[in-house]
Each structure stands twice: as structure tokens, then as C-alpha cells.
């Protein structure tokens, strides 16, 4: 053992030794001391025990899928804001930037999005499945298959594509313009998705027929930063997903229900 190995020198380096941060010479010198000094060896064992216990108590975590999607979607928007607008379309400005952005992030997102999608439950929509569908609709330039603010264009478009015909209320007078519609696949079934807008917020309304005519009153919940509302009336189920605040989404839902009842 080199003459300069003191207990203090050793005790100062126990942590670095555990972390593999000592150079080879120092590590050798320290191990040599521990082999012969019971007191320092005891300190080393106690420190190692404590470090392992902390590591066991604080495991690394896995980011929730919904966060993965939110991150990808915000990266995409940032990229779109930075890039010049290349896609010309008759759709609204926001739709245009989504499309441009989708091209930019398609490659980044594919692996994550595919993973998230295959994990979506297949029996009946859950809040997670709906949010996944909502985020997917924003992500891949697939917000709408038919772009129109006219319900007389959107409603007939679904005919022949689905075995039911969704109600498409006009709510622009109340500040919720219709953007369009699309066919979607949520919770293992084909559904009609109506897309409304409030400022920069997209509202997806997923609707499909249910066996019971009995109405189920609306229920709104906040789920991972999104609002998810659902109700059923007249044999149709409605699911509404948006990142709009709860109050405005609640009034959107009552407008939808009133329009439907008329």
C-alpha cells in the first residue's frame, strides 16, 4: 500500500469508487486499503447498502404514452411554425400548418405512434383510446377526410361509408365552426368523427349507434390534460375530446345535445 493512503483519503473516495469514477491507479490503491482496514471496509459496505437502497426506492419511470404523443405533437407544431408554409389548401390556416407539420415529423413520430396505437384497447372506447385517436387526428394530417363548414356537405359524405348517418349540427353562431368530418376507428369500431373548432383548439366528436335508446346523461372528465365528455341520446353515443378548457367544452356539449334534440 502506498505510503500516502490515509483513512481520510479513502473515506473521501468511497462514493466515487462505487460509481466507478476513480482512475485505475486510485481504484487499486483504495481496494488495497479496504482489504486490510476493517473500519474503512465497514464504512464502504454501509455506504454501498445505503446507495443500493436509494436506487431501489427510486426506480426510473416510463413516460406515459399520452405524454409521448403530446411531445411529438408539440415538436411538430414547433417545426411547422419554424418552417415556411408550403402546403396550399382551401382549409383553414390551422389545418394547413398541421399538414405541413405532419410531413416534418412523420418520421420522428412513426415508431412512437405505432407503439401507442397497438396498445390501444380494442373493446369499447376508453378515455385513453379516444385521446389517442384525437392526437392521431392532429398528428398525421388526417384531421378531416372531408373539409367543409357546411353540414349539408358533411352529412351526406358519410352516407355509404357507414351504416348510420350522424347528426351534424351547425354551431358556428355559438363560436364552434364545423371544420369537417372523417371516418375513424376507435375502440375496435368504425365511427363518424366530426371536427369542430374553437379558436386554435380542435374538438373531435366521435359518434356511433348504440343498442339502447335510453339516454345516458353527459359526463365530463379531465384526463391527462384533455377533456373527455360522453353521453348518449336517441340511440347514438357521443364522445367529445379536446384540449379546450372544461367550461367551454361543457357549453359545446350542451349545444350539441340541444341541436340533436331539435
Amino acid at each position: 500500500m502506498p505510503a500516502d493512503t490515509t483513512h481520510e483519503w479513502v473515506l473521501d473516495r468511497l462514493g466515487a469508487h462505487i460509481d466507478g469514477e476513480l482512475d485505475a491507479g486510485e481504484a487499486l490503491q483504495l481496494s488495497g486499503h479496504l482489504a486490510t482496514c476493517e473500519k474503512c471496509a465497514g464504512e464502504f459496505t454501509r455506504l454501498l447498502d445505503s446507495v443500493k437502497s436509494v436506487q431501489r426506492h427510486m426506480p426510473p419511470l416510463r413516460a406515459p404514452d399520452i405524454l409521448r404523443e403530446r411531445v411529438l405533437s408539440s415538436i411538430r407544431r414547433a417545426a411547422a411554425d419554424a418552417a415556411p408554409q408550403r402546403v396550399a389548401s382551401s382549409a383553414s390556416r390551422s389545418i394547413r400548418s398541421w399538414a405541413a407539420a405532419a410531413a416534418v415529423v412523420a418520421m420522428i413520430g412513426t415508431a412512437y405512434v405505432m407503439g401507442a396505437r397497438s396498445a390501444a384497447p380494442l373493446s369499447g372506447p376508453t378515455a385513453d383510446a379516444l385521446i389517442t385517436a384525437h392526437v392521431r387526428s392532429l398528428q398525421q394530417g388526417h384531421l378531416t377526410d372531408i373539409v367543409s363548414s357546411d353540414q349539408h356537405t358533411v352529412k351526406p359524405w358519410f352516407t355509404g361509408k357507414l351504416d348510420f348517418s350522424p347528426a351534424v349540427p351547425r354551431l358556428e353562431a355559438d363560436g364552434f365552426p364545423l371544420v369537417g368530418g372523417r371516418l375513424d376507428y376507435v375502440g375496435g369500431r368504425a365511427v363518424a368523427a366530426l371536427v369542430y373548432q374553437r379558436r386554435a383548439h380542435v374538438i373531435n366528436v366521435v359518434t356511433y349507434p348504440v343498442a339502447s335508446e335510453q339516454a345516458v346523461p353527459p359526463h365530463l372528465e379531465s384526463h391527462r390534460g384533455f377533456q373527455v365528455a360522453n353521453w348518449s341520446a336517441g340511440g347514438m353515443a357521443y364522445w367529445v375530446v379536446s384540449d379546450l378548457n372544461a367550461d367551454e367544452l361543457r357549453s359545446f356539449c350542451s349545444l350539441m345535445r340541444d341541436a340533436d334534440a331539435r
Partner: protein
Amino acid sequence: MADLGTDSFEAVVLPHLDAAYTLARYLLRDEDAAQDAVQESFLRAVRHFRGYRGENGKAWLLAIVRNCCATARTRGAREIAFVEFDETHHSDHVESATPELYLVRSDAAESFTRALDSLSAADREVLILREVEGLAYDQIALAIGAPIGTVMSRLSRARRRMQTLVPREARDAG
């Protein structure tokens, strides 16, 4: 961004999403705040990626996450008085995996949480970067913008405290 080489954003930064979430979750101890901080971090990372000079991608990203969490904490302190209580939302938190809940609810868990709480924010952060994120000392130095000597003294102080404050039997129980 379209560049898919080994230096691209998706190759350097995106793989560390879990690490970013882990750090934010342990620093902020709140699911929603952590998710927001991670999202904000990736936005900043995209904007500043031109400033990335080939250093360790994980440490580079975690430096941003750390700053976002610091901002979130000061903002959170101001906003907390205005948070409306929403039962569905808040009851969610009982089920969610807060770091504290990884611990068995016991005296052992309590003493562990108390010990962690008793660390200064600066020491706790270095402990998390080392024990949970597994960063090397030079990477921690990069992430917190301090010299390696500072990293070592904070880590050693934090570890000593954990060792003193968490009784041996509590460690075995956890």
C-alpha cells in the same frame, strides 16, 4: 429535422423521453406538472438543437428539463391558490405513481421520504441525476452547469444524509 443521421434530433434527444419524464416526476412530484415540464422541455430542445455540439444527449436534454422544472416550481407556487378542485382530476392522483408511492406505506417509507425532503434542492437534484438517471459525474456537471468538484461534494453530502436518516432496518424493509 429531416436529417436522419446519427446527429439528428430524433437520434440524439428523443430516446431520452423516459429519462426526461423520470427527472421531472421526481423533481416536481406531480403528474400533470411533470408532463407539462417535459413537453415544454422538448419544445425548448427543438428550438435550441442548433446549439447542441455533440455532447452527451441525455445530459444535454436533462439540463433543459431541470431548468423547466425550476420555472414550473416558481410558477406553481403562485398558481396553487387558484387551482379549482375537480374531483375526477384530483382523485386520479391517489392512484398515480408518485415517487412516494413506490415506497411501501410504512415507517420505512416515511423515513425515506423525510430524509429525501430534508435534502437541499441542489443536493437532491444531484442525487436523482446519479442514483435514478445513472449519469456519470461529468454528465451531471453538464446537466446542472457546475464543476465536477461541486457535483462530488453535493452527492457525497446527499448520500451521507440518506445513510444517516434512513435507519438500517427501514432500508431492508423497503
